[in-house]
C-alpha cells in the first residue's frame, strides 16, 4: 500500500530496518527486565538489612525451597502462553509423593517407586490433555476437576499418615550440596530443565507455534500449527514435571503425605504471571518466569528470617502480583493506543514497516518490543 507506491517511484536503495527499535531497547525495556531488576534490588536490600539473611546457608535453603515451584513453573509457562491453564499440578505433586511413599513402604525399591510416580504424573497430564484437546472442554474446568480427583486419590491412598522412611542415600542426595559450595545438587537438574524448556519455547518451531496458538488459535491452525497435539504434549509435560517435583518434595522433607503441596499451584501461577507472561496467552519469556520465581522466593525467605508471620508474607506477595498484572495490562493498553495514534495519518511514507509483529518473537525479545510502526497499513 503506502510502501508499494514508494517502491514504485524509487526502485532501489531504500533500506528498511529489521526492527522498529534499537536492540538495547527491545531487550532492556521489557517487563522481564523489570522483574530481574526487582530481584536484584530485593536481594541486596534483604542481605544488608535482615540479620541472618546474608549468609551462605540462606542461598542453600532458598534454592531448595524454590526448586519445586521453579520446576513446575516451566511447563506452566508454556501452557499459559497457549492460553490454557493447569490447576491440577499441585495435586499431581501430592499424588506422586503418596505413590512413592506407599510403594516404598510396601518394600518396592525406591527407584522403581519413583518411576511409577513419574508414569502416574504423565498419565494424569495425559488425562488433562485428552479432556482439553479431544473432548474439547475448557482447561480451567477440566483442571479444577482433576485437582480434586488427584488430591482425593492421594489422600485416599494414605489417609493422614505420613510415610517417612526413605533410603538415606536419596534423602541426603536431595539436600546435598555440590562440593564445598552452597549450591544444592538439585540445582543442576533445575538448570538443565530450565535450559531445555528455554530452547523448546524460544528456539524451536514448536515453541513459536505456542505463541501463535495463544494469540490466534484458528489462524495458527490454518498456518499449519498442530494445535491439539501441542496442547496434549504440554499437559503431559506438566504432569511429568509435577511428578518429578513431587518426588523431590518427598525426599527433601522426608515425608510423603496426601496433603503435601496443597495450594502450590497458586504459588506457581503467581510466579509465572509476575514474570511477565500474559494470562490471556501469546506473550511471555522464560527468563522473566525464572526471575519471578526467585523474586517471590527471596522476598518470602527474607521476611521469614526477619520473623514476619506467613500471613503478612502472603499479603505482600499477593499485592506484588496484583500490581504486576495491573501494570502489564495498563502498559499493553498504552502500547495499543500509541499504535492507533501513529496509524492516524495513512498513506504517508513516514511509517517504517517491520518484519516482526506482536507475538512472534525471536531470541530474547518479546512483543513488548513492538514500536511505532503501524499495523494494517
Amino acid at each position, binding site marked *: 500500500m503506502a510502501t508499494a507506491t514508494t517502491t514504485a517511484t524509487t526502485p532501489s536503495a531504500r533500506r528498511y530496518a529489521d526492527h522498529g527499535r534499537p536492540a538495547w531497547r527491545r531487550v532492556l*525495556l521489557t517487563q522481564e527486565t*523489570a522483574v530481574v531488576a*526487582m530481584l536484584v*534490588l*530485593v536481594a541486596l*536490600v*534483604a542481605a544488608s*538489612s*535482615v*540479620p*541472618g*539473611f546474608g*549468609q551462605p*546457608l*540462606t542461598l542453600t*535453603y532458598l534454592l531448595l*525451597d524454590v526448586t519445586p515451584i521453579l520446576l513446575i513453573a516451566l511447563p506452566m509457562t508454556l501452557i499459559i502462553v497457549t492460553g490454557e491453564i493447569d490447576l491440577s499440578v499441585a495435586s499431581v505433586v501430592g499424588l506422586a509423593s503418596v505413590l512413592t511413599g506407599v510403594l516404598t513402604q510396601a518394600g518396592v525399591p525406591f527407584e522403581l517407586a519413583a518411576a511409577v510416580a513419574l508414569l502416574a504424573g504423565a498419565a494424569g497430564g495425559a488425562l488433562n490433555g485428552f479432556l482439553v484437546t479431544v473432548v474439547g472442554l475448557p482447561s480451567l474446568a477440566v483442571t479444577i476437576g482433576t485437582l480434586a480427583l488427584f488430591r482425593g486419590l492421594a489422600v485416599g491412598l494414605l*489417609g*493422614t*499418615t*505420613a510415610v*517417612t*522412611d526413605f533410603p538415606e542415600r536419596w*534423602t*541426603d542426595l536431595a*539436600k546435598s550440596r555440590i562440593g564445598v559450595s552452597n549450591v544444592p545438587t538439585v540445582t543442576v537438574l533445575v538448570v538443565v530443565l530450565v535450559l531445555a524448556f528455554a530452547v523448546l519455547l524460544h528456539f524451536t518451531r514448536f515453541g513459536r507455534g505456542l505463541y501463535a496458538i495463544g494469540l490466534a488459535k484458528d489462524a495458527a491452525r490454518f498456518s499449519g500449527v498442530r494445535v491439539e497435539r501441542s496442547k496434549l504434549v504440554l499437559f503431559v509435560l506438566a504432569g511429568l514435571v509435577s511428578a518429578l517435583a513431587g518426588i523431590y518434595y518427598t525426599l527433601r*522433607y*522426608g*515425608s510423603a*503425605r496426601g*496433603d*503435601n503441596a496443597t495450594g502450590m499451584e497458586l504459588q506457581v501461577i503467581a510466579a509465572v504471571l509476575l514474570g511477565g507472561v500474559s494470562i490471556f496467552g501469546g506473550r511471555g519469556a522464560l527468563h522473566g518466569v525464572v526471575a519471578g520465581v526467585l523474586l517471590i522466593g527471596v*522476598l518470602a525467605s*527474607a*521476611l*521469614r*528470617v*526477619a*520473623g*514476619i508471620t506467613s500471613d*503478612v508474607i502472603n499479603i*505482600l506477595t499477593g*499485592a*506484588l502480583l496484583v*500490581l*504486576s498484572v495491573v*501494570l502489564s495490562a*495498563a*502498559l499493553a493498553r*498504552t502500547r495499543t493506543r*500509541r499504535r492507533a*495514534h*501513529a496509524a492516524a495519518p495513512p498513506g504517508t511514507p513516514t511509517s517504517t514497516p517491520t518484519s516482526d509483529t506482536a507475538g512472534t518473537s525471536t531470541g530474547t525479545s518479546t512483543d513488548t518490543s513492538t514500536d*511505532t510502526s503501524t499495523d494494517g497499513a
Partner: protein
Amino acid sequence: MKSLAARSSAFAALALSLTLVASACTVEGSGGGETGGGAEGSGDLSITFLPKNLGNPYFDTSSSGAEEAIGEFDGTFAEVGPTEATPDAQVSYINTLTQQGVGAIAVSANDPKAICGALDEAREAGVKVVTFDSDTNPECRDVFVNQADAEGIAKVQVDLVAEQIGGAGEIAVLSASANATNQNAWIELMEEYLASDYPDITLVETVYGDDDDQTSFDKTAALLQTHPDLKGIVSPTTVGIAAAARYLSTSEHQGAVALTGLGTPNQMREYVEDGTVTAFALWNPADLGYLTAFTAKALIEGEITGEEGDSFEAGRLGAYEVGPDGVVLLGDPFVFDADNIGDFDF
C-alpha cells in the same frame, strides 16, 4: 508519545518499588523483635519453642511455663509453629531458626525421623536442640525432656479404663496424629500391658484425631457407630479427650461408655462434674515447659552435653539429672478425679 512511554515506565517503577518499601518497613519494624538473631554459641540465651501445632491448649500451657522460666534467667523467648500437626511444616520452621542463629530450639516432634535432617543441620550451625513431649530419633537431638516414664503413662491409662469398665469388654483408642512419636510409643506399651495383665479386654480400633478438635469429635462419633458394644475409650491426647467428652456428654452413651486418658483439669472439669469422665491422668505441662527451658539454658551455657549423669539446676523444680539415652524425666503421671480437680488451674 515519548512522554507517555516515559510516564508509564516511571509509574511502573514507582508502584513496584512501593511494595518494596512496604516490605522494608515491616522488616525494620520487627528487626529488633523477639526472635534473637546474631551470635550463636554459648551465651546466646534465645530459646524458641516449636510445638506440634499452634492453637493447642496443652502447648499454650507448656509455653507459658517456658516463658516463666526464661524470664527468670533473662533469656529471650519465642514460639513458632505450624497450624496443622504435620512433620514437613516443622522442617521449614527449623530451617528458618537455623538461619536466624537462635541459641536453642525446643521442639515437640510430629514424626521421629522426618525432621531429623533439618535438626542435624541446625546442630551443625551451633544451635542446641532439645525435644520435649514427643521425641525424635536420639541421634538428632541433644536432650529429650520426657514428662513421665512411657511405661508409667501407658500403665496408668490402662489401669484407669480397666477399673472403669469392670475388667472386661471392648475398648478403643482415640489418638493424635498417626505419626506422633509419643502417642505411638504409649499405645504400643498399652497393647503389651493389656495382653499381659488384662486378657479379657480387647482393643478393637485405634483412630486418629490429628490433634484437631472437630476431627476428634467426628472420629468419636464414628467409633461409637461402628462398635455398638464399645465399653471404653482411651484418649492419650488432651485435644482428643476433650472432644470425645464433648461428644459423649451430649449423646445417649453418657455414663455407659467410659472415657479416660490424658486431659487438662480446666478442660475436663465440667465433664467430671456431669459424670461423663470419672478419672483421667496428666502431669503439669507448664512444669514441662519450665524444665525444658532450663535444660536448653544448661545446654547453651555448656553446663551439660546430654551425656548420662550430667546434672543441672532447674529453678524452682530443683536439681535434675540426665538419664540413659539423653532423657530427662520430669516426674510421675498424676491422676485427676472429682475429689481433687478443683485444686488445679491449667
